[in-house]
C-alpha cells in the first residue's frame, strides 16, 4: 500500500514541477504582461495543486493535510487577486478588445 502511495506522490509532485516549469517558460517567452500573467497564474496554481495533492498521503491526517490544502487555497486567492490588480494596472495596447481609448467596452475596474 505504502509503495503505491509513494509512487503516487512521486508522479504527482513531478507533474506539478513540470507545470511550474511550463509557467516559468511562459513568463520568459510570452510577449506582453497580460499573456505572461495568464501563463503564470494558470500554470503555477495547477502545479501547486498537484504538488499538494501528491504530498497529502505523506502528511499526518487530518491536521497536516488540512494545513496543506489551506496553503493551496491561500495561494489561489492571492494569485487571482494579484492577477486582477496587475491586469487592471497595465494600460492595454491600442486596437486590442480591452482598449478604452478607441471607445471599445473595457472591463470594469
Amino acid at each position, binding site marked *: 500500500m505504502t509503495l503505491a502511495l509513494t509512487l503516487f506522490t512521486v508522479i504527482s509532485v513531478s507533474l506539478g514541477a513540470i507545470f511550474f516549469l511550463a509557467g516559468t517558460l511562459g513568463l520568459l517567452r510570452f510577449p506582453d504582461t497580460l499573456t505572461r500573467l495568464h501563463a503564470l497564474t494558470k500554470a503555477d496554481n495547477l502545479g501547486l495543486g498537484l504538488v499538494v495533492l501528491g504530498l497529502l498521503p505523506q502528511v499526518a491526517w487530518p491536521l497536516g493535510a488540512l494545513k496543506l490544502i489551506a496553503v493551496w487555497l491561500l495561494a489561489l486567492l492571492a494569485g487571482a*487577486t494579484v492577477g486582477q490588480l496587475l491586469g487592471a494596472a497595465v494600460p492595454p495596447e491600442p486596437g486590442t478588445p480591452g482598449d478604452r481609448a478607441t471607445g471599445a467596452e473595457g472591463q470594469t*475596474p
Partner: protein
Amino acid sequence: MSLALAADAFLALLILGLAIWTIAASQTYGAVVGFVAYGLLVALVWVRLGSVDVAMTEAALGSGLTGLLLLGAAAHLAPLEAAERQARPGPWLRLLVGALCGAVTAVLAAVVLSLPEPAPTLGPAVAEHLATLGVRNPVTGVLLGYRAIDTLLETVVLVPALVAVWSLATDPAWGGRPASPGPRDPGSALTLLAQVLPPAGILVGIHLLWVGADAPGGKFQGAVVLAAMWVLVLVAGLRRPPALAGRPLRWLIVLGALVFIVIGLSGVWLAGAFLAYPEGLAKPMILAIEILLTPSLAVILGLLLLGPPVADRGPGT
C-alpha cells in the same frame, strides 16, 4: 545525503544571487521586489537550520511587513532616483570599498569555519529547566522565561520608535489620522481579498499565539499576522486609519508592556525575583503576558507601517 547538500547549495546560491540583484539593480522598485523574494528564501533557510519560529518571523516580518514598507517608499521616491546617481562615489572608491568588504567577508568566513568543534551551547541547560516554566517550546521558554528582560525591553523599544515616526508629522496634523496606505480606487479584487482573507488570517494569528507555548509559534508571529490583516483591510480602504490622539488606542499600545511589568514586579513577592514566575503558576502567567502582548504588538507594528499622522481631513486622503 549529498542530494540534500546539493539542494542547500542551490538555495544558498539563489539567495546570494537575489542579494546581489538587490544591491546591483538599477531601479529601486525592482531591488525591493528582489528583496522580498530574498526574504522568503531566507525563511526557507531558517527551516533548514531547524529554527521554525525564526522562519515564521522572518517570512512575516523580515520580508512581508518590511517589504510592504519599502515598496511604499520605493513608489514614493521613484521620481528622485535619477538625481541620486550624481551622488555616486567614484569608481576607485567603490572598488576600494568592495575590496575591503571582500576582506571582511573572507576573515568572517575563515572565523566561522574555525569555530570550536564541540560547539558550546545552552541547549541542554534550557531543556533541563524547561519543565519548571511549564512550556514545551524552548524558544518561548527563553523569550519569556530565562531572558524575559530582553523581550520586555524589546517591546518597550517599539514605543519610542513609534513616537519617533509620529514626531515627523507637521504640527497641525498632530493627533490626526495617518494617510491611508491603499490606492484611491482599490478595485473589486482587492476589496474581495480584504473581505475574505482577514477572518481566516485572524484565526491563524490567534492559533499561532496559542500554539506558541508548546510548538513553534508565539506572540511575535501571531502579532505580525494580525498586523498584516489589519493593514490589508486599510489598503483596501474598507476602514480608515485610526486617529492617533485617541485615548483607547494609546492605552492599547502600552497595555501589553505594562501588564508584562506588573506581572514581573509581582514575581518579586511571589517568586523572589523580578520577572520570575511562582511555582506551578508559570504557564498561566506566561500565557497571560502573551495574550495581552499580542494586540499591543499588532497595533504598534501596524502603526509603524502607516507612518506619521496627516491632517485629519475626511475619509483616507
